[in-house]
């Protein structure tokens, strides 16, 4: 169970991450302990170099911790091999990156479908789900457009649709509003809030953006690889 009584999806216990840069060891995370419950809408914030993106990389099974334990839905990530991590990312984690998330040669529809396609989900089911999601993120009628024919905000919406298409346990969004204007950022946050509220999708952001921080229901502030504050709202 997480601190607020919800079922914990993500559990980090004493996680450290040390990068070697030249001859210098950089301590990105220093004994980070954090639990994220199902259905949370959490933002990790902090100054550059505070370790927020490193934390997301570790939770997303993209990188390995130097020490400590990371558990996602009961699976200890450090015990998984490369193939198992890849499968875990495919089936249980959704990703939204800062920008240029999409495959330029695929249409909005195809980009949103990608994860379900590699999962081997039936074509009819894929079609139903993708069209539903693209409509939910306000991209109805733009399914056949390639990324170059979409605005930055529209591209991020496709990325959100792709991230949640396969019903992941958690969506990890790294600075999802970093490259869009205020109005688009508001709209993106609104869409993610709605997906969180209506479909129970768990979101975990890393962000600098005050607009994201404002709307997060839990705000974890990192400083020098450690939690400085962990604030829950309404």
């Amino acid at each position, binding site marked *: 169970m997480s601190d607020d009584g919800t079922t914990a999806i993500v559990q980090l216990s004493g996680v450290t991450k040390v990068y070697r840069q030249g001859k210098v060891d950089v301590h990105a995370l220093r004994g980070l302990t954090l639990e994220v419950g199902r259905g949370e809408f959490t933002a990790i914030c902090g100054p550059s170099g505070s370790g927020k993106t490193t934390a997301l990389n570790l939770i997303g099974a993209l990188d390995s911790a130097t020490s400590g334990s990371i558990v996602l839905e009961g699976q200890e990530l450090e015990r998984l091999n490369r193939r198992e991590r890849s499968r875990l990312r495919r089936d249980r*984690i959704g990703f939204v990156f800062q920008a240029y998330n999409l495959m330029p040669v695929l*249409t909005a529809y195809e980009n949103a479908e990608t994860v379900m396609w590699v999962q081997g989900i039936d074509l009819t089911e894929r079609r139903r789900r993708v069209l539903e999601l693209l409509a939910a993120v306000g991209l109805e009628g733009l399914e056949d457009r390639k990324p170059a024919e979409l605005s930055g905000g529209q591209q991020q919406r496709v990325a959100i649709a792709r991230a949640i298409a396969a019903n992941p346990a958690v969506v990890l969004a790294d600075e999802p509003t970093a490259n869009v204007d205020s109005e688009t950022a508001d709209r993106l946050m609104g869409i993610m809030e709605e997906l969180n509220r209506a479909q129970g999708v768990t979101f975990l952001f890393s962000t600098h953006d005050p607009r994201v921080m404002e709307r997060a229901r839990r705000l974890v502030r990192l400083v020098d690889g450690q939690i400085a504050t962990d604030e829950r709202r309404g």
Partner: protein
Amino acid sequence: MRGRGTSLLVMAWRNLWRNRRRTLLTLSSIAFGVFLAVLFTAMQDRNWADMIDVAARLGSGHVTLQHPEYLESPTLSRTVRRTDALTALALDDPDVTRAVPRILGQVMLATARESRGAGFIAYDPAVEDSVTFTVLDALVEGESFSTPDDGGILLGARLAANLGVGMRDKIVYTMTDRTGEIVSGLARVSGIVRTGAPSVDRGVSLLPLDAARGVLGYAPNEATLVAVFIDDERRAEQVAERLGAATASEVAAQPWHAVQRELAAFIALKVGGARFMELLIAVLVAAGIFNTLFVSVMERMREFGILLAIGWSPGRLFGLLMLECGWLGVLGLLAAALLTVGPYYYLSTAGIDVSGLIGDSAAEVSGVAMPTTFRVGIYPEHLAIIGVTAFLATLLSGLYPAWKASRVDPVETITLV
């Protein structure tokens, strides 16, 4: 793709055209490489096939039925008998188109003023024509014998000049018979041949078969060999094996390359050189393809990182890149076909006359004049080998870039920080 769902094949196809200019350059390098390889090989195939054919028709056939010791010690005492039966036996083989008896040997030709040593070929004008005996096409004066015991002789143009004889002049020919006795015959010059091969034109005479038999004391069905002709000289070995098994022990069946050793060695040397050149072309083309594929992969590292992050397996990513190479190979071969078909058709039918470059003294190998018209004609299996090699070279060029893409570290390439 919306209706059918995402497809790796379609994705690979679209990726190919993201940088149209680079793809077209890669395709043109494949096409040009294949074009060169095809024309180069076709030129060699045609040239060697023609030379082998000319040599076979001028002498001992594509397969020769002869006395087992004749090959190592060719004398007029080592003969085969019952040439009619041997001819019939050869013609029973499905690959054999013609079979004719001949006597080959050395002769001394003498006129009142001059004498010259030469080779002679005695043939039966009743069963031979310019198809089996192409030298008859080179008659510049006179004509072939009318009967097997015709009293004429045909001379190479240079030999006739050296002897100082012209049409209808008398010549005494002297040779050694099967017992070692010196025997002679008298003939009148009934034709002059000019083949373009210096050694033929200055050193070969042609006699009627029965006339030679009479002088040599041969039986009516006796000759030094039966020359067997086939359509495809590459099957000479198999035909020789079959005929060898079917004939008695006093007859040996030899393929052309055992009889024409000098020519066979020359062709083997040239073919080896050609294979090396083709390998060099393949390596150069592959290096070009590797370079463009590698650059293309390096430019897309972030994309590969994202694909791996969202759950693509390295194997799927590797497959995508290899499919791109596969498309390149297929399109490259299509482009090569378009580029090659026109020049190939022209060169295989009209050809290019290079006699002006060679001059009057035609180059020859083992008594066979090099063709003076540059023509091409490729064996189907060689064409298939070039196509498969080009395709495999394209795939091989893509192996390392594809492997590198599949080993991308998403954290490093997505640069989340």
